[in-house]
C-alpha cells in the first residue's frame, strides 16, 4: 500500500477538521472537527506502523488515541449539554461570560 497516499489522507483530514473547528459556530460541529483531527493522527500512526518491521508501537498508540477521543467526546458533550441548559444556546459566539 502506498505510504504517500495515506499521509495525504491524514493531512487532508487534519485540515478539514481544522477548518471545521475554526469556522463553525455550533459547539457540536467544533467537537466533530476535533474528532476529525484526532483521526488524522491515527491514520499517520497506523500507516507508519505498517512499515515498521521492529515493533507495533504505532497501533498501540492509535488505540490509546481512540480511548482518549472517547473520553474527550463524553466530557465535551456533557459540558455542551450543561452550557445549553444555562445559556439556552449552543452558539459559541454567544457564550461569552464565565459567571454562573
Amino acid at each position, binding site marked *: 500500500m502506498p505510504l504517500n497516499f495515506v499521509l495525504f*489522507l491524514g493531512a487532508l*483530514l487534519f485540515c478539514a477538521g481544522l*477548518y471545521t473547528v475554526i469556522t463553525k459556530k455550533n459547539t457540536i460541529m467544533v*467537537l466533530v472537527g476535533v474528532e*476529525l483531527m484526532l483521526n488524522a493522527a491515527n491514520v499517520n500512526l497506523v500507516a507508519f506502523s505498517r512499515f*515498521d518491521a521492529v515493533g507495533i508501537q504505532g497501533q498501540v498508540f492509535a488505540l490509546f488515541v481512540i*480511548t482518549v477521543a472517547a*473520553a474527550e467526546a*463524553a*466530557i465535551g458533550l456533557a459540558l455542551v449539554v450543561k452550557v445549553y441548559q444555562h445559556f439556552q444556546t449552543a452558539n459559541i459566539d454567544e457564550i461569552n461570560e464565565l459567571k454562573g
Partner: protein
Amino acid sequence: MSLPLIIFYFFGILSAAAAIYIALTKNIIYVAFSLILCFIGLAGVFVFLGAEFIAVTQILVYVGGILVLLIFGVMLTNRLKGEKLVSQSRQKLLGFLVSGMLFYVLLQGILAANFSALEWMSAESGSQTGLKTLGMNLMTEYVLAFELIGLLLLIALIGAVYIAGNKRKEDKHAA
C-alpha cells in the same frame, strides 16, 4: 492496478470526500451521518494497513459510541421545531486560508521527505501485525500505559455523568 489496491483507494477517497463535506455543509445532521461515512472509510483503510483490531475498534467506538453521543448532543442542544438544524459559519476566508496553507505545507513536507531512508522502515514488512502480537504487546510491554488509559477512561466517564447529571436536592423531599 490490483483489486485490493482499488478497494484501498476507494475507502481512502470515500473518507476524504466525507471529511471535505463535513467542512463545507451547514446541516448538523448531515455532518453526523457523513462522519459515520468517514469513519467507516478509515476503518477500511486500517484493514488494508494490517491493523484489523484498530479497524474494528474504530467502528465499535466511533460509529457505535461517539456518534450516538453526538446525535444525542444535537437533539439535547437544539430546539427541534421540524425545520433544518443549521450551523452558521464565520470567518470562512480566514479559516480557508489557514487550513489551506497548512495543507500545502504538509503536502510539500510529505513529498520532500524520504521515508525509506529511515532505518526501521521496510517496504515489505507486516511481520509484526495481527491480533496476537498486539495483545501480547499490550499485556507485557505496554501494560502500565494500558492500565493508566483504563483509569483515565473511568475518570472521564464518571466526570461526564457528574457534570451532565441533574443535581437535585434530595433532602427537601426527605422531610
